[in-house]
């Protein structure tokens, strides 16, 4: 006690001195952090620039060359664009299907894992950490790793990409779902338990109706991400529109109209899906709000 009072400031001057001291120290820390951050950015940029094949300042002038070439060639052959789009439409559908199926599978398994790893709902509470670690690992493995290994095992095609994206989706949706589950009321579960319902029945009838809208909202957000991922995986050999893009690009000049058609298809589908899923999510949260006030 004596120590505390001894250190406490007595007069206004002392208080002010301590306060300015504190602000100065805080400002110093902030400044040091800022300088450190800028230094790291600059050093990082220099390193990346050195290890790159072409340097930043040489390339910056050429940044519009490629889009320019593609656009000029595409506008020359503008008449062929609709035909190319029809030609590549099936592979776009394949990319969308990869994303859709993997989101669906990921959501189903993610739901199961999240229920298994939420306190109060888990049938085996002791195994909660195990299921959490499984989700962590699923989340940590980049899709490309699984996809490349599976392409070696199963041959090229959409299935490796689907499994790879689904695995990652299980991890990330599982985590988000279990956060939603934490906020769900356990009373319906207890009520169902008293009627002798099995675990699956308790979850299906007691928990899922509570968390359903949130689940769907997260799954839609994930679908947007997964479409991009499935396009990228196509580029490394897993089929779909990414694969076609790689092919038409490796042909180089003369096939840029095809590349342009694929760019347009990909861009349009991403924007359309984003819009649809955005408005659906808006309606879901809106509906939930209405239900809460009623």
């Amino acid at each position: 006690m004596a120590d505390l009072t001894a250190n406490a400031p007595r007069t206004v001057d002392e208080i002010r001195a301590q306060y300015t001291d504190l602000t100065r120290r805080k400002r110093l820390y902030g400044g040091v952090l800022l300088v450190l951050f800028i230094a790291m950015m600059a050093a990082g940029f220099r390193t990346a620039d050195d290890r790159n094949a072409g340097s930043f300042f040489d390339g910056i002038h050429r940044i519009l060359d490629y889009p320019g070439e593609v656009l000029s060639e595409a506008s020359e052959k503008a008449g062929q664009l609709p035909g190319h789009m029809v030609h590549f439409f099936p592979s776009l559908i394949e990319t969308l299907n990869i994303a859709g199926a993997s989101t669906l599978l990921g959501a189903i398994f993610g739901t199961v894992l999240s229920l298994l790893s939420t306190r109060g709902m888990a049938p085996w509470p002791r195994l909660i950490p195990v299921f959490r670690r499984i989700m962590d690992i699923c989340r940590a493995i980049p899709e490309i790793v699984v996809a490349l290994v599976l392409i070696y095992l199963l041959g090229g095609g959409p299935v490796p990409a689907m499994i790879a994206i689904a695995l990652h989706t299980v991890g990330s949706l599982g985590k988000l779902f279990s956060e939603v589950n934490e906020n769900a009321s356990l009373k319906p579960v207890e009520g169902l338990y008293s009627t002798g319902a099995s675990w699956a029945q308790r979850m299906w009838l007691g928990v899922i109706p509570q968390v359903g809208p949130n689940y769907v909202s997260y799954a839609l957000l994930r679908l947007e991400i997964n479409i991009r991922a499935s396009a990228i995986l196509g580029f490394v050999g897993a089929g779909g529109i990414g694969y076609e893009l790689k092919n038409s690009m490796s042909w180089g000049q003369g096939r840029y109209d095809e590349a342009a058609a694929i760019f347009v298809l990909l861009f349009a589908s991403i924007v359309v899906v984003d819009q649809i899923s955005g408005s659906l999510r808006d309606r879901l949260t809106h509906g939930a709000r209405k239900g809460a006030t009623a």
Partner: protein
Amino acid sequence: MTTLDVNAGPLKGQMDKLFLKKRLMNFAVPAAIILYLGYVCFAFDVPGLWQRASLDNARTLVSDSYSYKTHVTRDNRSGLVTYAIEGERKGEYPEGMRPAWVSATGDTTVIDLEDGHVVRFGPETIEYDIPGYGLVSATPSRSKGVQAVLPEGDLPEWINLSKNRLAITTDAGRLTVTRNRAEVFRYFMGWELFFFTLDSPYHGMGAGELLSRAVSGEAGAIANDIWTNKMWRHGDVAWAIGETILMAFLGTFGAGLVALPLAFLGTRNFMPVRVVRFAARRVFDFVRGVDSLIWTVVLARAFGPGPLTGALAILITDTGTFGKIFSEALENVDEKQIEGVASTGAKPIQRYRFGVIPQITPVLLSQLLYFLESNTRSATIIGAITGGGIGLLLTQAIITQKDWEEVAYYIVLIVLMVMVMDWFSGWLRKRLIQGDAGGH
């Protein structure tokens, strides 16, 4: 009572309809999901997958990822015997050195495969003594191919014999004899030469001896031998991981720096001009919609392969995302704090610095750090396309289709890297945001 009766009729009808709808939905949603999955199943030709799937590949992958083999190869023309781990030049034993389980006297080399399996490379004839079966001998010659003498009885399925080739696969190892050469594989558990290659003086030393040598001043040389290991290329791998993290770091924070000023343009409360606001928002949408794949492809044309290209691809894609998130955060800023700062006579720039920035810092930081972790994963993928970082090493190792132990090593490193970044960004987020909240 009467009014209730009057109202109950249509109400009951409505309830019945609602219940019917719900009951139908209960069946319709799972049915739709199953139908869609079934359609995808056929669209992706899942039934035909089993024919295309290669079990041999799976076996090689699994066994190769935790074991390695040492090749003993005899050139049948010159009679020269060489020893190489995984049959690679960089794993070759130097002149005069050979594995402990091989002994050579004169022209004869005896290879002990343990459990009684012994292979003898004679001057003319190659013999394999297989316990429980007998002695197989083969004489390769340029004119007559491979002449094999086997014990009486049917040819077992693990022996493959033709005019010019004899192949025997047992649990202990594998022997192949062709006209030009004879080769024995012996399998071992673990990852070979992980720390030291055969040309290093420290190869085969125990941990204790290494430690004592390190203490007595050879630590630098030991570290150098590990770092420059030709088989596992630890130095290159460390650089590659550094490059991947660098891509994520530069991309994420660069995007944050670019997006913050642009975000003001897209908000209702800071940007009164509607046209500019609308344009800014469409720019964000466009940049996000183009997708990192297309940006990567376009940028790789301008800057060539390397980490900078990957960093810029992440930067541009995330500028759109951050622009959207930041302008949403800025629209939710509390006006009262800005007014308070303005009432002290602060200039506009000070109003932003002390009235706006402190309010959005937590949102900003937590988003940036969250994206830093997810961009580490993206950087791995983008690296595989543009050619930089650990993603490139991984694709290269997979393309060889035989270095599965390296693939396994890289996968472990990537998973660890992502987990460490996840933990680090979470820790930093907690520190910075709590510290901030406590300070203000």
